[in-house]
Protein backbone atom coordinates (compact mmCIF):
# COMPACT_ATOMS: atom_id res chain seq x y z
CA UNK A 1 0.00 0.00 0.00
CA UNK A 2 1.32 3.42 -0.90
CA UNK A 3 2.26 5.73 1.96
CA UNK A 4 -0.11 8.36 0.62
CA UNK A 5 -3.03 5.93 0.59
CA UNK A 6 -2.21 4.73 4.09
CA UNK A 7 -2.09 8.28 5.42
CA UNK A 8 -5.42 9.08 3.81
CA UNK A 9 -6.98 6.00 5.39
CA UNK A 10 -5.60 6.92 8.80
CA UNK A 11 -6.69 10.53 8.48
CA UNK A 12 -10.19 9.36 7.51
CA UNK A 13 -10.30 7.32 10.70
CA UNK A 14 -9.01 10.23 12.78
CA UNK A 15 -11.46 12.69 11.23
CA UNK A 16 -14.31 10.29 11.87
CA UNK A 17 -13.30 9.92 15.51
CA UNK A 18 -13.39 13.69 15.95
CA UNK A 19 -16.45 14.35 13.78
CA UNK A 20 -18.51 11.75 15.60
CA UNK A 21 -17.98 13.63 18.83
CA UNK A 22 -20.98 15.53 20.12
CA UNK A 23 -20.81 19.27 20.56
CA UNK A 24 -19.37 19.95 23.98
CA UNK A 25 -19.15 23.03 26.13
CA UNK A 26 -17.39 23.72 29.41
CA UNK A 27 -19.45 22.79 32.41
CA UNK A 28 -20.86 25.51 34.64
CA UNK A 29 -18.47 24.49 37.41
CA UNK A 30 -15.53 24.89 35.08
CA UNK A 31 -16.67 28.34 34.01
CA UNK A 32 -17.08 29.39 37.63
CA UNK A 33 -13.56 28.15 38.40
CA UNK A 34 -12.12 30.26 35.61
CA UNK A 35 -14.16 33.29 36.67
CA UNK A 36 -12.84 32.84 40.19
CA UNK A 37 -9.30 33.11 38.83
CA UNK A 38 -10.11 36.63 37.68
CA UNK A 39 -11.21 37.64 41.13
CA UNK A 40 -8.11 36.18 42.73
CA UNK A 41 -5.56 37.94 40.54
CA UNK A 42 -2.85 39.35 42.86
CA UNK A 43 -0.47 42.17 42.10
CA UNK A 44 2.09 41.00 39.55
CA UNK A 45 5.01 41.39 41.92
CA UNK A 46 3.28 39.00 44.35
CA UNK A 47 2.39 36.22 41.91
CA UNK A 48 5.40 33.97 42.35
CA UNK A 49 5.17 34.04 46.11
CA UNK A 50 1.40 33.49 45.86
CA UNK A 51 1.92 30.19 44.02
CA UNK A 52 4.31 28.96 46.67
CA UNK A 53 2.26 30.08 49.63
CA UNK A 54 -0.98 28.73 48.19
CA UNK A 55 0.64 25.39 47.43
CA UNK A 56 1.99 25.16 50.96
CA UNK A 57 -1.36 26.20 52.43
CA UNK A 58 -3.28 23.77 50.23
CA UNK A 59 -0.93 20.97 51.26
CA UNK A 60 -1.44 21.85 54.92
CA UNK A 61 -5.22 21.78 54.48
CA UNK A 62 -5.03 18.40 52.74
CA UNK A 63 -2.77 16.98 55.48
CA UNK A 64 -5.15 18.11 58.22
CA UNK A 65 -8.12 16.70 56.34
CA UNK A 66 -6.44 13.40 55.61
CA UNK A 67 -5.26 12.99 59.17
CA UNK A 68 -8.82 13.59 60.27
CA UNK A 69 -10.28 11.20 57.68
CA UNK A 70 -7.85 8.36 58.56
CA UNK A 71 -7.01 7.55 55.01
CA UNK A 72 -5.04 4.35 54.75
CA UNK A 73 -5.56 1.07 56.54
CA UNK A 74 -3.15 -0.14 59.13
CA UNK A 75 -0.36 -2.48 58.04
CA UNK A 76 -1.94 -5.33 59.97
CA UNK A 77 -4.92 -5.34 57.61
CA UNK A 78 -2.88 -5.45 54.38
CA UNK A 79 -3.78 -8.04 51.74
CA UNK A 80 -0.05 -8.31 50.99
CA UNK A 81 1.80 -11.02 52.88
CA UNK A 82 5.40 -11.10 53.98
CA UNK A 83 7.62 -14.17 54.18
CA UNK A 84 11.24 -15.04 53.99
CA UNK A 85 12.64 -15.89 50.61
CA UNK A 86 15.93 -16.76 49.09
CA UNK A 87 17.82 -13.66 48.04
CA UNK A 88 20.07 -15.20 45.45
CA UNK A 89 21.29 -12.00 43.81
CA UNK A 90 24.00 -13.84 41.90
CA UNK A 91 21.26 -15.61 39.95
CA UNK A 92 19.53 -12.40 38.89
CA UNK A 93 17.97 -12.58 35.43
CA UNK A 94 17.15 -9.13 34.14
CA UNK A 95 14.28 -8.93 31.64
CA UNK A 96 15.11 -7.10 28.45
CA UNK A 97 13.11 -3.93 28.09
CA UNK A 98 12.88 -1.89 24.95
CA UNK A 99 13.54 1.53 26.38
CA UNK A 100 15.03 3.05 29.45
CA UNK A 101 13.24 6.14 30.62
CA UNK A 102 15.72 8.45 32.23
CA UNK A 103 15.42 9.27 35.88
CA UNK A 104 17.09 12.09 37.74
CA UNK A 105 16.43 10.37 41.03
CA UNK A 106 17.02 6.63 40.67
CA UNK A 107 20.25 4.89 39.81
CA UNK A 108 18.38 1.60 40.09
CA UNK A 109 14.66 0.99 40.22
CA UNK A 110 13.86 -2.66 39.82
CA UNK A 111 10.94 -4.99 40.41
CA UNK A 112 12.29 -8.39 41.42
CA UNK A 113 10.35 -11.60 41.64
CA UNK A 114 11.07 -15.20 42.44
CA UNK A 115 8.94 -18.02 41.14
CA UNK A 116 7.91 -20.72 43.54
CA UNK A 117 10.57 -23.39 44.09
CA UNK A 118 13.12 -21.44 42.07
CA UNK A 119 16.38 -19.93 43.31
CA UNK A 120 16.52 -17.58 40.33
CA UNK A 121 15.59 -13.96 40.98
CA UNK A 122 14.07 -12.22 37.98
CA UNK A 123 14.39 -8.47 37.62
CA UNK A 124 12.46 -5.85 35.67
CA UNK A 125 13.82 -2.33 35.32
CA UNK A 126 10.84 -0.04 35.98
CA UNK A 127 12.43 2.49 33.67
CA UNK A 128 11.94 0.20 30.67
CA UNK A 129 8.84 -1.08 28.96
CA UNK A 130 8.17 -4.77 28.48
CA UNK A 131 6.09 -6.37 25.73
CA UNK A 132 4.24 -8.59 28.18
CA UNK A 133 2.84 -8.18 31.67
CA UNK A 134 4.58 -10.16 34.40
CA UNK A 135 2.30 -12.75 36.03
CA UNK A 136 2.74 -14.07 39.56
CA UNK A 137 0.89 -16.73 41.51
CA UNK A 138 0.34 -17.08 45.24
CA UNK A 139 3.53 -19.10 45.61
CA UNK A 140 5.73 -16.44 44.03
CA UNK A 141 7.54 -13.65 45.86
CA UNK A 142 8.30 -10.11 44.80
CA UNK A 143 10.09 -7.03 46.05
CA UNK A 144 11.54 -3.74 44.91
CA UNK A 145 15.21 -2.86 44.63
CA UNK A 146 16.18 0.80 44.68
CA UNK A 147 19.26 2.92 44.61
CA UNK A 148 18.98 6.69 44.49
CA UNK A 149 21.31 9.24 42.97
CA UNK A 150 21.22 11.41 46.04
CA UNK A 151 19.20 12.01 49.16
CA UNK A 152 15.58 11.50 48.10
CA UNK A 153 12.21 10.93 49.67
CA UNK A 154 10.53 7.85 48.28
CA UNK A 155 6.94 6.66 48.60
CA UNK A 156 5.65 3.33 47.38
CA UNK A 157 1.98 2.34 47.22
CA UNK A 158 0.37 -0.77 45.87
CA UNK A 159 -3.15 -0.80 44.55
CA UNK A 160 -4.26 -4.40 44.73
CA UNK A 161 -6.70 -6.11 42.40
CA UNK A 162 -9.25 -5.94 45.21
CA UNK A 163 -8.88 -2.14 45.19
CA UNK A 164 -7.03 -2.00 48.50
CA UNK A 165 -4.46 0.75 48.66
CA UNK A 166 -1.46 -0.38 50.69
CA UNK A 167 1.53 1.71 51.74
CA UNK A 168 4.67 -0.28 51.04
CA UNK A 169 7.08 2.48 51.95
CA UNK A 170 7.56 4.15 54.31
CA UNK A 171 5.99 1.48 56.45
CA UNK A 172 7.66 -0.18 59.40
CA UNK A 173 5.97 -3.46 58.59
CA UNK A 174 7.94 -3.61 55.36
CA UNK A 175 11.11 -1.70 56.11
CA UNK A 176 12.94 -0.24 59.09
CA UNK A 177 14.59 2.34 56.85
CA UNK A 178 13.15 5.83 57.17
CA UNK A 179 13.00 8.51 54.50
CA UNK A 180 15.05 9.97 52.90
CA UNK A 181 16.98 7.26 51.08
CA UNK A 182 20.67 8.00 50.73
CA UNK A 183 22.97 7.75 47.73
CA UNK A 184 25.35 4.82 47.66
CA UNK A 185 23.10 2.38 49.48
CA UNK A 186 21.10 -0.46 48.00
CA UNK A 187 17.58 -0.72 49.36
CA UNK A 188 15.22 -3.66 49.18
CA UNK A 189 11.54 -3.28 49.89
CA UNK A 190 10.70 -5.15 52.01
CA UNK A 191 13.90 -5.42 54.03
CA UNK A 192 15.92 -8.54 53.35
CA UNK A 193 15.34 -11.44 53.75
CA UNK A 194 11.61 -10.77 53.49
CA UNK A 195 9.63 -10.82 50.29
CA UNK A 196 6.06 -9.83 49.54
CA UNK A 197 3.45 -12.20 48.18
CA UNK A 198 -0.23 -12.07 47.37
CA UNK A 199 -2.22 -14.85 49.01
CA UNK A 200 -5.71 -14.10 47.83
CA UNK A 201 -7.25 -12.10 44.98
CA UNK A 202 -6.30 -12.43 41.34
CA UNK A 203 -6.07 -9.59 38.86
CA UNK A 204 -3.93 -6.62 38.08
CA UNK A 205 -1.70 -5.15 40.78
CA UNK A 206 -0.27 -1.64 40.45
CA UNK A 207 2.85 -0.41 42.16
CA UNK A 208 3.19 3.37 42.38
CA UNK A 209 6.67 4.66 43.13
CA UNK A 210 6.95 8.35 43.84
CA UNK A 211 10.22 10.08 44.57
CA UNK A 212 11.17 13.61 45.34
CA UNK A 213 14.17 15.58 46.49
CA UNK A 214 11.99 17.14 49.16
CA UNK A 215 9.28 15.55 51.31
CA UNK A 216 5.81 15.63 49.78
CA UNK A 217 3.47 16.75 52.57
CA UNK A 218 0.35 15.39 50.89
CA UNK A 219 1.80 11.90 50.71
CA UNK A 220 3.14 12.07 54.25
CA UNK A 221 -0.40 12.92 55.22
CA UNK A 222 -1.77 9.91 53.34
CA UNK A 223 0.65 7.58 55.09
CA UNK A 224 0.43 8.80 58.64
CA UNK A 225 -3.30 9.34 58.58
CA UNK A 226 -4.09 6.15 60.53
CA UNK A 227 -6.99 3.78 59.86
CA UNK A 228 -9.67 4.75 57.40
CA UNK A 229 -12.94 5.76 58.94
CA UNK A 230 -15.67 3.17 58.69
CA UNK A 231 -18.08 5.86 57.68
CA UNK A 232 -17.21 6.38 54.04
CA UNK A 233 -20.17 8.54 53.22
CA UNK A 234 -19.41 11.56 51.06
CA UNK A 235 -15.64 10.87 51.23
CA UNK A 236 -13.29 10.91 48.30
CA UNK A 237 -11.67 7.48 48.07
CA UNK A 238 -8.00 6.99 49.04
CA UNK A 239 -7.29 6.01 45.46
CA UNK A 240 -8.76 9.26 44.14
CA UNK A 241 -6.65 11.22 46.56
CA UNK A 242 -3.50 9.36 45.57
CA UNK A 243 -4.30 9.86 41.88
CA UNK A 244 -4.83 13.55 42.49
CA UNK A 245 -1.44 13.74 44.20
CA UNK A 246 0.27 11.90 41.37
CA UNK A 247 -1.44 14.14 38.82
CA UNK A 248 -0.29 17.20 40.74
CA UNK A 249 3.28 15.90 40.62
CA UNK A 250 3.07 15.18 36.90
CA UNK A 251 1.59 18.61 36.33
CA UNK A 252 4.68 20.10 37.88
CA UNK A 253 3.19 21.43 41.10
CA UNK A 254 5.89 19.58 43.05
CA UNK A 255 9.30 20.30 41.61
CA UNK A 256 11.99 17.64 41.23
CA UNK A 257 9.54 14.79 41.75
CA UNK A 258 8.99 11.67 39.66
CA UNK A 259 6.27 9.06 39.51
CA UNK A 260 6.63 5.51 38.25
CA UNK A 261 3.98 2.90 37.69
CA UNK A 262 4.51 -0.83 37.38
CA UNK A 263 1.59 -3.16 36.69
CA UNK A 264 1.75 -6.91 37.07
CA UNK A 265 -0.78 -9.67 37.06
CA UNK A 266 -1.70 -11.94 39.95
CA UNK A 267 -3.03 -15.17 38.49
CA UNK A 268 -4.19 -18.48 39.93
Amino acid at each position, binding site marked *: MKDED*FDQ*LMNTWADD*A*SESAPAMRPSADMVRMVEAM*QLRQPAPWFQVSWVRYSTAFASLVVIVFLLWSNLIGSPGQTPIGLREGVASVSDLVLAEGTEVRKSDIFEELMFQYQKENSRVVNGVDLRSSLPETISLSSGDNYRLFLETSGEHHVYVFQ*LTSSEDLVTIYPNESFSDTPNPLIQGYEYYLPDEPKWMYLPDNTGLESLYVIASKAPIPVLDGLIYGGEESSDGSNRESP*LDKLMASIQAI*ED*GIFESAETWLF*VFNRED
Partner: protein
Amino acid sequence: MSQDLQHLPNDREVYVCGDEQLMEELKQGNTGALDELYWRYARKLHGFCANMTFSRSSMDPQDLVQEVFLRVVKAAQSFDAKKASFRTWMFRIARNHCIDAMRRNDRIRFIPIGKRSERSDGELNYLEEETVIDSDQNVERLAIRENVVNAVHDCISKLTNEDERQAIIMYYMGCKVYREIGLVLGKSTSMAKTRVMMAQEKVRKCLETKGIDHFPSEMSTDHDTIRM
Protein backbone atom coordinates in the same frame (compact mmCIF):
# COMPACT_ATOMS: atom_id res chain seq x y z
CA MET B 1 -8.36 40.82 28.23
CA SER B 2 -7.05 39.93 24.80
CA GLN B 3 -8.01 42.13 21.91
CA ASP B 4 -7.37 39.33 19.45
CA LEU B 5 -11.01 38.62 18.74
CA GLN B 6 -12.64 38.22 15.39
CA HIS B 7 -16.27 37.64 14.59
CA LEU B 8 -17.14 34.91 12.17
CA PRO B 9 -20.36 34.94 10.18
CA ASN B 10 -21.85 32.49 12.69
CA ASP B 11 -21.15 35.01 15.46
CA ARG B 12 -18.68 32.75 17.23
CA GLU B 13 -15.92 34.86 18.64
CA VAL B 14 -12.57 33.49 17.61
CA TYR B 15 -9.28 34.10 19.27
CA VAL B 16 -6.58 34.40 16.66
CA CYS B 17 -3.81 33.83 19.14
CA GLY B 18 -1.98 30.62 19.97
CA ASP B 19 -2.91 28.05 22.57
CA GLU B 20 -0.27 29.27 25.00
CA GLN B 21 -1.64 32.81 24.83
CA LEU B 22 -5.11 31.40 25.46
CA MET B 23 -3.83 29.70 28.60
CA GLU B 24 -2.45 33.00 29.83
CA GLU B 25 -5.87 34.51 29.19
CA LEU B 26 -7.52 31.65 31.05
CA LYS B 27 -5.24 32.18 34.03
CA GLN B 28 -6.51 35.75 34.12
CA GLY B 29 -10.07 34.47 34.39
CA ASN B 30 -11.10 34.85 30.75
CA THR B 31 -13.90 32.34 30.18
CA GLY B 32 -13.80 33.11 26.46
CA ALA B 33 -10.34 31.56 26.37
CA LEU B 34 -11.78 28.42 27.93
CA ASP B 35 -14.52 28.33 25.28
CA GLU B 36 -11.93 28.71 22.54
CA LEU B 37 -9.79 25.91 23.89
CA TYR B 38 -12.87 23.73 24.07
CA TRP B 39 -13.69 24.59 20.48
CA ARG B 40 -10.21 23.72 19.36
CA TYR B 41 -9.62 20.54 21.29
CA ALA B 42 -12.77 18.96 22.72
CA ARG B 43 -13.57 16.92 19.63
CA LYS B 44 -9.96 15.84 19.14
CA LEU B 45 -9.82 14.81 22.78
CA HIS B 46 -13.08 12.93 22.37
CA GLY B 47 -11.60 10.84 19.57
CA PHE B 48 -8.35 10.44 21.48
CA CYS B 49 -10.03 9.31 24.69
CA ALA B 50 -12.43 7.03 22.88
CA ASN B 51 -9.57 5.26 21.16
CA MET B 52 -7.33 5.24 24.23
CA THR B 53 -9.99 3.50 26.27
CA PHE B 54 -10.90 1.02 23.52
CA SER B 55 -14.42 2.49 23.62
CA ARG B 56 -15.18 0.61 26.83
CA SER B 57 -18.89 0.83 27.34
CA SER B 58 -18.65 2.00 30.94
CA MET B 59 -16.44 4.94 30.07
CA ASP B 60 -18.06 7.83 28.27
CA PRO B 61 -15.46 9.75 26.25
CA GLN B 62 -17.56 12.86 26.76
CA ASP B 63 -17.14 12.50 30.51
CA LEU B 64 -13.43 11.87 30.06
CA VAL B 65 -13.09 15.03 27.99
CA GLN B 66 -14.88 17.07 30.65
CA GLU B 67 -12.67 15.56 33.34
CA VAL B 68 -9.53 16.28 31.34
CA PHE B 69 -10.53 19.89 30.84
CA LEU B 70 -11.39 20.16 34.50
CA ARG B 71 -7.85 19.04 35.31
CA VAL B 72 -6.51 21.51 32.78
CA VAL B 73 -8.39 24.34 34.46
CA LYS B 74 -7.35 23.23 37.94
CA ALA B 75 -3.71 23.00 36.93
CA ALA B 76 -3.77 26.10 34.72
CA GLN B 77 -1.57 28.12 37.04
CA SER B 78 1.15 25.49 36.82
CA PHE B 79 1.21 25.50 33.02
CA ASP B 80 4.52 26.85 31.77
CA ALA B 81 4.82 27.42 28.02
CA LYS B 82 8.60 27.32 28.35
CA LYS B 83 8.52 23.70 29.45
CA ALA B 84 6.04 22.31 26.94
CA SER B 85 3.45 23.42 24.44
CA PHE B 86 -0.16 23.49 25.58
CA ARG B 87 -1.01 20.63 23.25
CA THR B 88 1.73 18.43 24.71
CA TRP B 89 0.73 19.33 28.26
CA MET B 90 -2.95 18.71 27.64
CA PHE B 91 -2.45 15.41 25.82
CA ARG B 92 -0.23 14.25 28.64
CA ILE B 93 -2.99 15.01 31.11
CA ALA B 94 -5.50 13.28 28.83
CA ARG B 95 -3.35 10.20 28.37
CA ASN B 96 -2.70 9.81 32.09
CA HIS B 97 -6.37 10.35 32.87
CA CYS B 98 -7.46 7.76 30.33
CA ILE B 99 -4.97 5.25 31.70
CA ASP B 100 -6.26 5.85 35.22
CA ALA B 101 -9.82 5.49 33.99
CA MET B 102 -9.02 2.19 32.31
CA ARG B 103 -7.26 1.01 35.45
CA ARG B 104 -10.39 1.59 37.47
CA ASN B 105 -12.60 -0.02 34.89
CA ASP B 106 -13.40 -3.61 35.76
CA ARG B 107 -14.59 -4.87 32.43
CA ILE B 108 -12.92 -4.65 29.08
CA ARG B 109 -15.24 -4.44 26.11
CA PHE B 110 -14.46 -3.54 22.57
CA ILE B 111 -17.16 -1.68 20.77
CA PRO B 112 -16.29 0.00 17.47
CA ILE B 113 -16.92 3.70 17.40
CA GLY B 114 -20.04 4.60 15.50
CA LYS B 115 -21.71 1.28 16.08
CA ARG B 116 -24.77 0.77 18.16
CA SER B 117 -24.73 -2.44 20.12
CA GLU B 118 -27.02 -3.91 22.69
CA ARG B 119 -25.72 -5.78 25.68
CA SER B 120 -27.38 -8.90 26.95
CA ASP B 121 -29.07 -6.91 29.71
CA GLY B 122 -30.69 -4.64 27.16
CA GLU B 123 -28.58 -1.57 27.88
CA LEU B 124 -27.62 0.30 24.75
CA ASN B 125 -24.11 1.35 24.04
CA TYR B 126 -23.86 5.12 24.30
CA LEU B 127 -21.46 5.30 21.34
CA GLU B 128 -24.21 6.07 18.93
CA GLU B 129 -23.69 8.52 16.12
CA GLU B 130 -26.49 10.26 14.39
CA THR B 131 -26.00 11.10 10.77
CA VAL B 132 -27.87 13.67 8.78
CA ILE B 133 -27.79 12.80 5.09
CA ASP B 134 -28.37 15.57 2.63
CA SER B 135 -30.03 15.16 -0.74
CA ASP B 136 -26.68 14.61 -2.52
CA GLN B 137 -25.48 11.99 -0.09
CA ASN B 138 -23.82 8.96 -1.61
CA VAL B 139 -25.00 6.03 0.49
CA GLU B 140 -22.37 3.73 -0.97
CA ARG B 141 -19.62 6.17 -0.10
CA LEU B 142 -20.85 6.28 3.46
CA ALA B 143 -20.74 2.52 3.66
CA ILE B 144 -17.20 2.42 2.27
CA ARG B 145 -16.09 5.11 4.68
CA GLU B 146 -17.62 3.25 7.61
CA ASN B 147 -15.86 0.08 6.51
CA VAL B 148 -12.53 1.91 6.36
CA VAL B 149 -13.02 3.54 9.76
CA ASN B 150 -13.99 0.27 11.42
CA ALA B 151 -11.09 -1.58 9.80
CA VAL B 152 -8.54 0.99 10.97
CA HIS B 153 -10.05 1.02 14.44
CA ASP B 154 -9.90 -2.76 14.62
CA CYS B 155 -6.27 -2.85 13.45
CA ILE B 156 -5.23 -0.24 16.00
CA SER B 157 -6.99 -2.11 18.77
CA LYS B 158 -4.97 -5.19 17.86
CA LEU B 159 -1.66 -3.48 18.57
CA THR B 160 -0.37 -5.31 21.61
CA ASN B 161 2.39 -2.84 22.41
CA GLU B 162 0.67 -0.12 24.42
CA ASP B 163 3.32 2.48 23.56
CA GLU B 164 2.82 1.86 19.86
CA ARG B 165 -0.93 2.08 20.18
CA GLN B 166 -0.82 5.33 22.11
CA ALA B 167 1.82 6.77 19.80
CA ILE B 168 -0.15 6.15 16.62
CA ILE B 169 -3.36 7.44 18.18
CA MET B 170 -1.61 10.63 19.18
CA TYR B 171 0.10 11.00 15.82
CA TYR B 172 -3.13 10.98 13.85
CA MET B 173 -5.24 12.76 16.46
CA GLY B 174 -3.45 16.05 15.83
CA CYS B 175 -0.04 15.66 17.43
CA LYS B 176 2.21 14.95 14.46
CA VAL B 177 5.36 16.06 16.21
CA TYR B 178 7.55 13.20 17.40
CA ARG B 179 9.11 15.31 20.12
CA GLU B 180 5.70 16.13 21.54
CA ILE B 181 4.61 12.51 21.35
CA GLY B 182 7.79 11.57 23.16
CA LEU B 183 7.10 14.13 25.88
CA VAL B 184 3.58 12.82 26.37
CA LEU B 185 4.68 9.19 26.51
CA GLY B 186 7.76 9.87 28.57
CA LYS B 187 10.04 8.62 25.81
CA SER B 188 12.82 10.10 23.70
CA THR B 189 11.98 11.70 20.36
CA SER B 190 13.67 8.89 18.47
CA MET B 191 11.81 6.25 20.44
CA ALA B 192 8.52 8.03 19.81
CA LYS B 193 9.27 8.08 16.10
CA THR B 194 10.15 4.39 16.21
CA ARG B 195 6.91 3.59 17.98
CA VAL B 196 4.85 5.50 15.45
CA MET B 197 6.58 3.89 12.49
CA MET B 198 6.31 0.38 13.90
CA ALA B 199 2.64 0.92 14.64
CA GLN B 200 2.05 2.28 11.14
CA GLU B 201 3.66 -0.77 9.61
CA LYS B 202 1.59 -3.17 11.69
CA VAL B 203 -1.64 -1.34 10.96
CA ARG B 204 -0.78 -1.21 7.27
CA LYS B 205 -0.26 -4.98 7.16
CA CYS B 206 -3.42 -5.55 9.12
CA LEU B 207 -5.42 -3.45 6.69
CA GLU B 208 -3.97 -5.36 3.76
CA THR B 209 -5.07 -8.65 5.29
CA LYS B 210 -8.57 -7.15 5.40
CA GLY B 211 -8.37 -6.44 1.71
CA ILE B 212 -7.75 -2.70 2.08
CA ASP B 213 -4.62 -1.90 0.12
CA HIS B 214 -5.46 1.54 -1.25
CA PHE B 215 -7.57 4.60 -0.48
CA PRO B 216 -10.97 4.02 -2.09
CA SER B 217 -11.49 6.36 -5.01
CA GLU B 218 -15.20 6.62 -4.10
CA MET B 219 -14.23 8.56 -1.00
CA SER B 220 -12.36 11.23 -2.95
CA THR B 221 -15.36 13.55 -3.57
CA ASP B 222 -16.38 17.10 -2.71
CA HIS B 223 -19.59 16.09 -0.99
CA ASP B 224 -19.71 16.49 2.76
CA THR B 225 -21.46 14.30 5.22
CA ILE B 226 -23.01 16.32 7.98
CA ARG B 227 -22.70 14.60 11.31
CA MET B 228 -24.43 15.63 14.46
